[in-house]
């Protein structure tokens, strides 16, 4: 267990008091724009909330293979398309989970895969558009059995 930072502790404490209906908002509130991972991706540009969609089941018995879909509505033309969608984990040992890169020839900015999750946490998707804007959305998932870290 790594020590829980003060900022994260406060964020989690706040999340614990929030109403379930607000869980989407608390999930995104925990995406810190000064987080080095986010910073490397956005180079400090502001990240707006919305437009990108992230789909995860609300609960998973097993964190070894959880279906994930990220997508964004876009005409996907040469002048207006989604460049990439990055997926960040809050609690996994490797937080930079995946980055998906599109071109106008992708036709649709949508990817489905299966991910590993080391326990209940928020998962955030950040999309980079061809016009230079960034959009983010997060979801919370409860995981009963985390993906194995030590034993096989």
């Amino acid at each position, binding site marked *: 267990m790594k020590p829980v930072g003060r900022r994260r502790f406060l964020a989690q404490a706040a999340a614990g008091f929030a109403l379930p209906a607000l869980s989407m908002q608390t999930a995104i509130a925990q995406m810190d724009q000064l987080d080095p991972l986010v910073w490397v991706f956005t180079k400090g540009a502001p990240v707006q909330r919305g437009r990108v969609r992230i789909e995860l089941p609300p609960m998973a018995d097993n964190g070894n293979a959880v279906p994930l879909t990220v997508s964004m509505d876009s005409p996907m033309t040469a002048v207006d398309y989604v460049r990439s969608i990055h997926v960040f984990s809050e609690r996994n040992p490797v937080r930079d*989970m995946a980055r998906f890169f599109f071109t106008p*020839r*992708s036709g*649709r900015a949508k*990817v*489905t*895969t299966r991910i590993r999750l080391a326990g209940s946490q928020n998962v955030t998707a950040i999309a980079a558009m061809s016009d230079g804007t960034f959009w983010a959305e997060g979801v919370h998932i409860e995981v009963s059995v985390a*993906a194995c*870290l030590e034993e*096989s």
Partner: protein
Amino acid sequence: MTARIQLVPARPRRGEIVEVRVLIQHNMETGYRRDEEGRGIRRNCINLFICRYDGVEVFRADLSSGIAANPFLEFYTVAGRSGELEMWWIDDESTQGTERAPITVSE
């Protein structure tokens, strides 16, 4: 390393968006597990996947140990001309894999 590729629809019309499903056989070893003697098993994950359509990149993914074993990817491409889709990937031990699928486009 082998992979299975499925296109939906199998015979798209020109301009139609095709769903590409790829399933690659790979452990995606996290680097956090130990063998029976207690020695750490080295991390070995596919870290890069690229799909090309007649040599032109249409989709790319940077992957990590956060992707489940036997990675599954479902993405899209626009049907242009009849040709070939090539999937290419590489893991942390620099082992490369490739798998091709013909794409037949009806007018």
